[in-house]
C-alpha cells in the first residue's frame, strides 16, 4: 500500500477516533491513579476482615443486654407487690393500657378485662374524678404526682374503707403518640392504722404525764389545806376558837390552787380571734420594763436590744404577745436565779432582742439568759406541759407550753437553743417568731 493511501479521508477519520480514544484513556488513568493509590492496603483489608466478626458479636451482646434489661423490667412489673399500671391519654381521659398482676389482684379482675378501661369503670365516682384530675396535672406539668384516696373497697380489696396511695410519673415517648404515665397504687390502710395507733398512744402518754403533773401540783396545796383545817377542827373541838393563822393559810393555798387552774385554762384555751397589727417594739419595751421593775431587787440585769427601726408591725394579739414574752422572761429569771444559787459568781443577765427579716416575713423576739441552758435530759420535751428542770414547788412546767400555744394561735412559733455552752455566760435563747403585719406567710 502506498503511503498516500494513509491520507485517504477514511483513514483520517479512523486516526482521529483513535487519537480521541487514547486521550480519554490517558485522562481516565490520570483521574483513577490517585484513587487506586489511596485504596486500602491489603493489610487494612485484613484488619477489617478480622474486626467485622467482633463488631457483629458486640452488636449481638448489646441486643442481648437490652433483652435482659427488658426482661428484668418485665420481671419487676410482674412480680412487684405494688399494683403498677401504664395509663395513656385517651379521647375522653385516661385509659388503663397495661396493668401488672398485683393490679389485677387488687381489683379481682383478669388483665384482659382491665386493659382498656377508664378510671370511672374501676373506681367510685369521687376517686375516679380525683384520679383523672391528677392524671391531667401530671401530663400538664410533666412532673410526678403523689396522692392518697379513700375508697369503699369491695371484697377483692379487703372490704371496708381503704386508703390508697397513688403515684403517677410521666413516661418518655414519641411526640406523635398519645402521652403515657407509669403509675403505682399501694394499699396503705394498715400503715395509716398503725400511724393513728401511734398518735393515740402518744396522746394517752401525754395525758398520763399531764395527770401526774396536775396531781403533784395540786397535792401540795391540798395537803396544806387539809392539815391546817384538821388542826383548826381539833382546836375548835377542844373548846378554843378557830386559829386565825389556819384560816389565813387555807385562804392562801386556795389562791395557789386557783392560780394553777387559771394556768391550765390558759393552756387549754382555743385559738383567739380578733388578731390585729401592732408594734412589737412598743410591746417588748413595755414588757421588759415591767419585768425589770418587778425584779429590781434581785440583782438581775435585764436589757433590751432594738432593731434599727423604732416600729416593727407584727400580726397577732398584743396582750398575748405580752403574756408569752412574760412567760419567757420568768423562765429566764428562774434559770438565772437557780444558777446563781449554786454559783454566786455566775453572770445574771437577760437580754431581749428584736430582729426582722432573718426569716422572710417574720419578726423574732429573742430572750437570752445566762442560766446555764436547758439540761439535755429534758431538752426533747421542754415545750410539753409539766416538764420542768425546776425544783419541786418552784415551777409548774406550764410557762413554756403556754407561750408556745399563744404564739401558735398568732400564726407564729416558739424555738429555742442553748448557747455559749461551757462558757461563764452559758444559757438558753428562746425565740418568739411572729408574722410581720402584711406578710402572706401567717401559718408557721
Amino acid at each position, binding site marked *: 500500500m502506498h503511503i498516500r493511501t494513509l491520507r485517504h479521508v477514511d483513514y483520517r477519520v479512523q486516526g482521529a477516533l483513535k487519537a480521541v480514544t487514547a486521550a480519554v484513556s490517558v485522562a481516565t488513568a490520570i483521574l483513577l491513579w490517585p484513587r487506586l493509590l489511596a485504596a486500602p492496603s491489603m493489610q487494612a483489608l485484613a484488619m477489617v476482615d478480622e474486626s467485622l466478626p467482633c463488631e457483629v458479636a458486640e452488636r449481638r451482646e448489646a441486643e442481648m443486654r437490652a433483652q435482659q434489661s427488658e426482661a428484668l423490667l418485665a420481671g419487676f412489673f410482674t412480680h412487684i407487690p405494688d399494683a403498677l399500671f401504664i395509663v395513656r391519654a385517651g379521647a375522653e381521659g385516661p385509659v388503663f393500657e397495661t396493668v401488672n398482676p398485683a393490679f389485677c389482684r387488687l381489683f379481682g379482675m383478669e388483665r384482659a378485662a382491665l386493659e382498656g378501661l377508664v378510671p370511672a369503670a374501676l373506681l367510685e365516682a369521687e376517686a375516679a374524678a380525683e384520679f383523672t384530675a391528677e392524671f391531667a396535672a401530671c401530663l400538664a406539668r410533666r412532673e410526678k404526682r403523689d396522692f392518697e384516696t379513700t375508697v369503699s373497697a369491695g371484697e377483692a380489696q379487703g372490704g371496708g374503707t381503704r386508703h390508697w396511695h397513688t403515684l403517677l410519673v410521666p413516661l418518655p415517648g414519641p411526640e406523635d403518640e398519645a402521652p403515657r404515665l407509669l403509675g403505682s397504687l399501694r394499699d396503705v390502710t394498715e400503715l395509716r392504722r398503725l400511724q393513728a395507733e401511734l398518735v393515740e398512744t402518744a396522746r394517752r402518754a401525754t395525758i398520763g404525764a399531764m395527770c401526774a403533773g396536775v396531781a*403533784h401540783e395540786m397535792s*401540795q396545796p*391540798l395537803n396544806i389545806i387539809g*392539815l391546817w383545817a384538821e388542826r383548826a377542827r381539833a382546836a375548835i373541838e377542844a373548846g378554843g376558837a378557830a386559829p386565825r393563822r389556819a384560816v389565813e393559810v387555807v385562804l392562801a393555798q386556795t389562791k395557789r390552787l386557783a392560780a394553777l387552774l387559771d394556768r391550765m385554762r390558759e393552756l387549754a384555751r382555743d385559738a383567739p380571734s380578733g388578731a390585729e397589727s401592732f408594734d412589737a417594739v412598743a410591746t417588748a419595751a413595755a414588757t421588759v420594763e415591767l419585768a425589770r421593775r418587778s425584779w429590781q431587787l434581785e440583782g438581775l440585769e435585764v436589757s433590751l436590744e432594738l432593731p434599727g427601726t423604732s416600729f416593727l408591725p407584727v400580726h397577732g394579739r398584743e396582750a398575748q404577745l405580752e403574756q408569752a414574752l412574760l412567760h419567757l422572761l420568768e423562765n429566764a429569771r428562774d434559770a438565772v436565779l437557780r444558777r446563781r444559787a449554786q454559783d454566786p459568781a455566775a453572770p445574771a443577765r437577760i437580754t431581749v432582742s428584736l430582729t426582722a427579716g432573718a426569716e422572710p416575713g417574720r419578726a423574732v423576739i429573742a430572750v437570752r439568759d445566762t442560766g446555764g441552758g436547758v439540761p439535755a435530759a429534758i431538752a426533747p420535751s421542754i415545750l410539753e406541759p409539766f416538764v420542768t428542770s425546776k425544783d*419541786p414547788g418552784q415551777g409548774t412546767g406550764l410557762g413554756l407550753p403556754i407561750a408556745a400555744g399563744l404564739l401558735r394561735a398568732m400564726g407564729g412559733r416558739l424555738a429555742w437553743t442553748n448557747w455559749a455552752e461551757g462558757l461563764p455566760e452559758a444559757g438558753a435563747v428562746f425565740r418568739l417568731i411572729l408574722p410581720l403585719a402584711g406578710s402572706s406567710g401567717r401559718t408557721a
Partner: protein
Amino acid sequence: MPLRVLMAEDEDLAAEVLQEVLEDAGFEVLLAPDGQAALELAAAGAGFDVLLTDLRMPRLDGRELILRLRAERPSLPVVVMTGFAPPEGPERLHDGSGPLRLLTKPIDLSGLVSALRAVAHEG
C-alpha cells in the same frame, strides 16, 4: 422516852403544822427542809427513831434519802408522804430491810400518828 422523828419536808406550811401535831402527840421532831439537810443532820449524829419524809424534794429526794440512811441503818423505820403514789407502787421504795409505810397526800393526821407508831414498833 418520846419517839424521835426526823422529818424531811420542803413545804414550810406543811412542816409547821406537822411538827405541831406530832409534838402534841408526844413525838420529838427534828425538822429538815429537804433530803440533803436530813442526811447532814443524821451524819452530824442527831439521834432519831423514825424517818418521816416527802418524796419530791429539792437537792436530794426522798427515795435517795431512804437508800442512803438505810445503808447505815438497814432496819430504820420509814414513813413516806407523797403527792402522787409512784406508779410502780411502794415496793420500789423497799430495799427488803426495815419497815415502811406509804401515805398519800392529803395526809390524814391521825393516820400519820398511828403509822409512825406502827413502824417504830415494827422496827
